[in-house]
């Protein structure tokens, strides 16, 4: 019987994910998937609700490959997937936010941070702490004067196109 939790789309992606054999291939796959299919700046919405399921499966596979390649528990908690110091990497992102006072720029930074650093790219203990700082700042920038902007101004800010049925 057909159902929505075992679809052809998921099967196709699962086959592709199972064929990943190295961390570098997994990283490339995840980066490309996140660029194409996640966030408001994604290239396509074709995968619809399957996006989060597929992303989680790539993350799981990549996490597995990463743990098989790494020996030290310490490194799992302190280094990024490509072996850099997680604290420094996250620190760089937080530093980038320091001078931003525009909510659209800050929003772009938060989206980019999530795509680049969400585990297993960066260990969760560093990723979450960094995201908390960035999102808190975004929330502050967004809340100021939020009720004063007109819908027309907001549409222009987002670059949306109004539609009607002909």
């Amino acid at each position, binding site marked *: *019987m*057909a*159902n*929505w939790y075992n679809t052809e789309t998921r099967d196709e992606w699962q086959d592709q994910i199972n064929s990943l054999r190295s961390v570098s291939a997994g990283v490339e796959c995840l980066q490309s998937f996140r660029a194409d299919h996640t*966030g*408001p*700046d*994604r290239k*396509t*919405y074709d995968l*619809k*609700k399957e996006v989060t399921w597929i992303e989680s499966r790539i993350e799981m596979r990549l996490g597995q490959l990463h743990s098989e390649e790494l020996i030290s528990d310490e490194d799992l908690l302190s280094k990024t997937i490509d072996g850099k110091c997680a604290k420094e990497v996250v620190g760089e992102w937080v530093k980038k936010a320091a001078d931003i006072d525009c909510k659209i720029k800050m*929003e772009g930074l938060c*989206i980019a941070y999530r795509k680049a650093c969400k585990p297993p790219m960066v260990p969760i203990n560093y990723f*979450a702490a960094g*995201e*908390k*700082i*960035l*999102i*808190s700042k975004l*929330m*502050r920038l*967004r*809340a*100021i004067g*939020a*009720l004063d902007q007109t*819908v027309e101004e*907001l*549409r222009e*800010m*987002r*670059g*949306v*196109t*109004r*539609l*009607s*049925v*002909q």
Partner: protein
Amino acid sequence: MASSNLAVKEALKANPVPSSVDPQEVHKWLQDFSWDFKAKGGKYPTKYNLDVNTREQFKLTAKEYARMESIKEERQYGTLLDGLDRLDAGNKVHPKWGEAMKVISNFLEVGEYAAIAGSALLWDAAQSPEQKNGYLAQVMDEVRHTNQTAYVNYYYGKHYYDPAGHTNMRQFRSVNPLYPGVRRAFGDGFLAGDAVESSINLQVVAEACFTNPLIVSLTEWAAANGDEITPTVYLSIETDELRHMANGYQTLVSVMTDPESFKYLQTDLDNAFWTQHKYLTPFVGFGLEYGSKYKVEPWVKSWNRWVYEDWAGIWLGRLQKFGIKSPKCLADAKKDAMWAHHDLALLAAALWPLTGIRMELPDEEAMNWFEANYPGWYDHYGKIYNEWKSLGFEDPKAGFCPLVWMMQNGHGIFIDHTSTLPFCPTLSKSASNPSFLEMNGKRFAFSEGHGERQWLQEPERYEFQNFFEQYEGWELSELVKAAGGVRSDGKTLLSQPHLRSTDMWTLEDLKRLNIVIPDPMKIMNWQPVH
């Protein structure tokens, strides 16, 4: 050892656990317990600075909580399992109401479940030990309420003459177009985003504003329709709500004295009110008035008294001296209180195969009541219901489907992207100002400007695949079958457009309608507005 476990261990070392269960000693211990983690900041983002000196209003929590809740549980489950069993209460409920409870209690369970996480989020964000204790007590309450709301469906499933739907609504609701709305208001609203904004959604709006019209009205309507089960459980829930309202008040107090934090408050209050109202006002009004045989007070009157006068006027009025104002969207909400539940009822009837309940169209007596209390109701809605009846709405052999009728008559149904509720621009009498937008190659529908504004402010927050996008291309009977929408015989539908046990619709009847779910944002000829 994880750092949080270590912190707990160190805190317990500094404040040894009481040697007895003497209430005074336990209370004193909790007052002294500092939750003094090394990093007080918590895990989740917030734009607010919460005052470290905030007090918790319920000093009795520690010494009385367990005893009080234990007595409430004994009374409630004792009444249900002994008294009400023997009185056959499950079968004394009017069937119309018994059907409504299939969705009402199940949907509210989502709110209670999300509130567990929402209260825990606040525990994480709070700086004051007493305030943390207050939120922690709420976490325990919400666990209790989740069990209670689920127990109503469980009890009905065992004792009501038509258990189908009470038994598996958690499964079937996944295809109910009305269900994502509760996830948006209660799920996202209670636990996603800023912790203080979650508190405003949960404690300040949903609990302080809406639990009176929701739970008090619900139990009143239930009792009028022969249901002793719902008041037994929901009034027990309501006795905990006062503590939660107080928590909401304390949340506001803890941030209002900080000028930096105060400037964010009004935006969050406005957004939270619209988020909660957008779902609760139509859903509760629909459940009470269309799910009942015997009517009580019209929803618009209850809403005006509890939401408009009591909450927006008196409760928020007390905060006016600090600079808090009533939400700007209140006037539109007031218009919705008159008509939004009628709009929703019409769409629920049009989409009946996906609701999971047996739903009867208003009879003559109900139509007279609607017209008397909502002048103009008959000309707008009543005539449509009568036309559907004459075309064979109830008859499985007639081949009539109101959904097709709507499409053929130019009444397109869309899903509002922010609230995630369905709406029909050409038949809506509520505060409607539809807009259709395209951004980054995707099309979005909005039923009104407040929701559109929320999405434009935070587009990533409202990522959501609506019913039409998700199930586009599915044949309707296949979808209903796949979602578990059939009874134990494997063919008769869970949902029915009448309350009888005869002439029940089957999968075959539905299949004959040959409805393939379209995505209106794709099939219509959308063009840019210049």
